[in-house]
C-alpha cells in the first residue's frame, strides 16, 4: 500500500489562471478595501480606520451625493428589470417559435448592439436625440407628434430614464440569448405531453416553459444587478463625470470616478474614492448574497 502520489499537475495547470487572476483582480480588490481606511493629511498617508465611511454616510455633503447616486442606481436597475428582462424573455419566446421566418436574422440584429462599445452607443443616441441635429424630433414631426419631443437628456426628470432605456436597447440581446438557449433545451416530449393534456399556445408558455426557465431568469437578474451597480461608461460618455443635469444621472460609478480621480478644479481623493468603491462592493455583495441564499436555494428545479 503506497500513499497516493501528490498530484502536481493540478497545481501546475491551475497556476497561470490563479496567478493572473490574483495579480489583476484579487490584489487590487483588497488593496482598494485597505486604501479606504487611510487618508492623506499633510502629504502623509495616515490610517484613519472607518472615518472615511462615517464621512461618506454621516456628512450631509457626502451622504446627499451618495444616497442620490444609490437611488439613481436603483432606478437604473429597476428600469432594466421592468423593461429589459421582460422584453428579453418575450423576444426569446417569439424567436423560439418554430414557424417564425428569418429568426436567425432577428436574433443577430437584436444582439449586435451588445457588442458595440459604450462610446459608440452613447454618441449615436446622443445624436439621435439631439434637439438640433437629431432624427428623433423630425421622426416625431413626421407622424404629427412633435409636441411629445423634449430635450430628454437635458431635463432632470427624464435624463436617467432615457439613459436606462438606451442601456436596455443595448443589452436586451443578453437576456434574449440566455432565455432562448434555455427554451431550446426544453425537450419536445414535455410540450407534446402537455398538448395531449390540452395545454397549448400561451398557456404552454406560462405553465410549462416559464417554470422551466425560471433559474435562467434568476441568473439574468443577478447579472443585471451586478452590471447595473458597476455601470459607469454610458453615463460618463453621454453626460460627463458631473452626470448632469444637476446630478440627476449620477450613479455610484460616476460618483466614485469623480471622487477618486477628481474633476476640473476638484482634486482627486483616492481614499474617499476607495471608500465609495468599497461601499459599491458591499452593496453588490449583499445583493448577490440575498439572491443566492434567499432565492436560488428555494427555487424549484425540474429534472428534464
Amino acid at each position, binding site marked *: 500500500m503506497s500513499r497516493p502520489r501528490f498530484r502536481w499537475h493540478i497545481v501546475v495547470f491551475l497556476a497561470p489562471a490563479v496567478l493572473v487572476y490574483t495579480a489583476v483582480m484579487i490584489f487590487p480588490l483588497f488593496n482598494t478595501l485597505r486604501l479606504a481606511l487611510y487618508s492623506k493629511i499633510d*502629504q502623509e498617508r495616515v490610517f484613519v480606520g472607518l472615518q472615511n465611511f462615517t464621512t461618506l454616510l454621516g456628512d450631509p*455633503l*457626502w451622504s446627499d451625493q451618495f444616497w442620490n447616486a444609490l437611488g439613481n442606481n436603483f432606478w437604473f436597475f429597476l428600469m432594466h428589470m421592468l423593461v429589459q428582462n421582460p422584453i428579453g424573455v418575450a423576444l426569446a419566446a417569439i424567436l423560439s417559435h418554430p414557424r417564425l421566418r428569418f429568426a436567425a436574422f432577428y436574433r443577430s440584429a437584436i444582439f449586435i448592439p451588445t457588442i458595440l462599445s459604450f462610446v459608440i452607443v452613447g454618441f449615436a443616441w*446622443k445624436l439621435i*436625440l*439631439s*434637439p*438640433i*441635429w437629431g432624427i428623433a*424630433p423630425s421622426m416625431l414631426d413626421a407622424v404629427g407628434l412633435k409636441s411629445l*419631443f*423634449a*430635450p*430628454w*437628456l*437635458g*431635463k*432632470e426628470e427624464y435624463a436617467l430614464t432615457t439613459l436606462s432605456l438606451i442601456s436596455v436597447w443595448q443589452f436586451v440581446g443578453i437576456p434574449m440569448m440566455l432565455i432562448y438557449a434555455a427554451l431550446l433545451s426544453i425537450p419536445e416530449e414535455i410540450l407534446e405531453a402537455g398538448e395531449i393534456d390540452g395545454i397549448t399556445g400561451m398557456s404552454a408558455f406560462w405553465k410549462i416553459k416559464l417554470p422551466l426557465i425560471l433559474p435562467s431568469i434568476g441568473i439574468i437578474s443577478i447579472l443585471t444587478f451586478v452590471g447595473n451597480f458597476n455601470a459607469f461608461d454610458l453615463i460618463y460618455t453621454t*453626460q*460627463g*463625470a*458631473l452626470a*448632469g*443635469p*444637476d*446630478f440627476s444621472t449620477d450613479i455610484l460609478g460616476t460618483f466614485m470616478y469623480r471622487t477618486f*480621480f*477628481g*474633476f*476640473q*478644479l*476638484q*482634486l*482627486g481623493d483616492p481614499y474617499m474614492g476607495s471608500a465609495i468603491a468599497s461601499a459599491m462592493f458591499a452593496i453588490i455583495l449583499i445583493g448577490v448574497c440575498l439572491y443566492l441564499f434567499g432565492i436560488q436555494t428555494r427555487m424549484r428545479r425540474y429534472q428534464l
Partner: protein
Amino acid sequence: MKRNILALAMASTALLTSAAYAEDVTLTIESWRNDDLALWQEKIIPAFEASHPGIKLKFTPSAPTEYNAALNSKLDAGSAGDLITCRPFDASLALYDAGHLSDLSDMDAMDNFSDVAKAAWQTDDGSASFCVPMAAVIHGFIYNKDAFNELGIEVPTTEEEFFAALDKIKEDGTYIPMAMGTNDQWEAATMGYNNIGPNYWKGEEGRKALIAGEQKLTDEQWVAPYATLAKWAPYLGDGFEAQTYPDSQNLFTLGRAAIYPAGSWEISGFNAQADFEMGAFKPPVRNAGDECYISDHTDIGIGMNAKTEHPEQAKEFLAWVASPEFATIFGNALPGFFPLSKTPVELEDPLAKEFASWRGECESTIRSTYQILSRGTPNLENETWGASAAAIKGTETPEALGKKLQEGLANWYEPQK
C-alpha cells in the same frame, strides 16, 4: 575591393547616425490641448529644434476632461513626461506640493512675466513659482457680422442694448439669437457667469473681497449675474437643455446663430469653420458709462516634472518658452491664446486683436472661483457649473442658488464662516 569600400562606407554611416541618435535627448510634453497638436508639430517644435540641436520634443496631449486624472496617475506611477502643461491654480499647486513639479523661481526667464501672470502658478505666499506662464484667455461675445448688418443691429455696449438686440434677432426669426446649451454645464458657468459677472462684482475688487471673506456669495453683486443668466433662456435655441458644447460651436459656425458667448480660445477654430465675418464685443456693462471689467484668465503654463532625467534640457526649453520668440509664434499661431510675457506681441488676427484691445479699455480679472476658493468640498467651481445651468433653465431662483453656494463655501472656508 570595390564592394569592401561600399560595405565600409555603409558601416560608418550606420555608426555615425546611431551616434547622433544617442546624443539626442527627447523631452515629452504632457498637455490637455489636443487641439494644438498640429501647431506644436508644425511650428513650435521645428522652431525650437532648429535653434537647440540635440534636444527633440514630443507633444503627447490627452483629452481635456481626462487630463488631470490621467496626469495624476502617470505622475504617481512615474511614467509622466518631462514637461507638464500646468492648469492654473490649485491643480498645479497640489502637484508642486506633492513634489511632482520643480521650483523654477531661480530661472532668469521668469523675470519676463508680471506678478499677476505668475500668480496662477505660485505658492500662496508667492515664494515659489513652478510653471512658466504661457497664455491667458479672454471672455466676451463673438457675433456674426453679416447677421448684425442684415438686421441693422449695432454692437451692444450696455445690458439694455444687449437684450434689445436679442429681441430683434428673435423677432426676425432667421437666426437663433444666442448659441449656448446647458447640457455640459461648464459653458453656463464659464461663458455665462464668469463672462458677465466681473461687471457686477467689479473684477479683482470683488474677487479679492470674496477670498478675504468681506463679501458673500449671497450679496447682490454675486447673485445678480444669475438673474441676468435666467433672462437668457428664451433666446437660446430649442432644446438648449440637451445642447452640448460642440452643438453650440457648430450652430454658430454654420451661421444659424447670431451671438456666441465665447472664450477667446474659440478664435482659431471659428476662423477655420465659419465662412462669414465675425466680430467680438465685450460683456455689456449694466449702465452706460460704467467702468468695464473683463475676465482675462491665466489658463496655461508649463512646468518641469521633478523626476525628469533631463532637467537641464527641460529648463533650456522652459527658458525658450519664456522668450519673446515663443510668445510671437504662439500668440499668432493660436489666435485667442494671449501670451503673458511683458514684451507686447504684435497680433495679426483681427478677431484676436479685438479681444486683446479690451485689455486697454477695461480692468482685467480672472475667474472668481479659481484661486483658493475651489480647494475644499464641495468644490465651488463645480457647484458654480450646476448653479449657472440651473439659473438659465430656471429650475432654481438666483437667491436660492446664492444661498446654496454660500453654504457650501462656508462649510470649509474659514474666512467665510
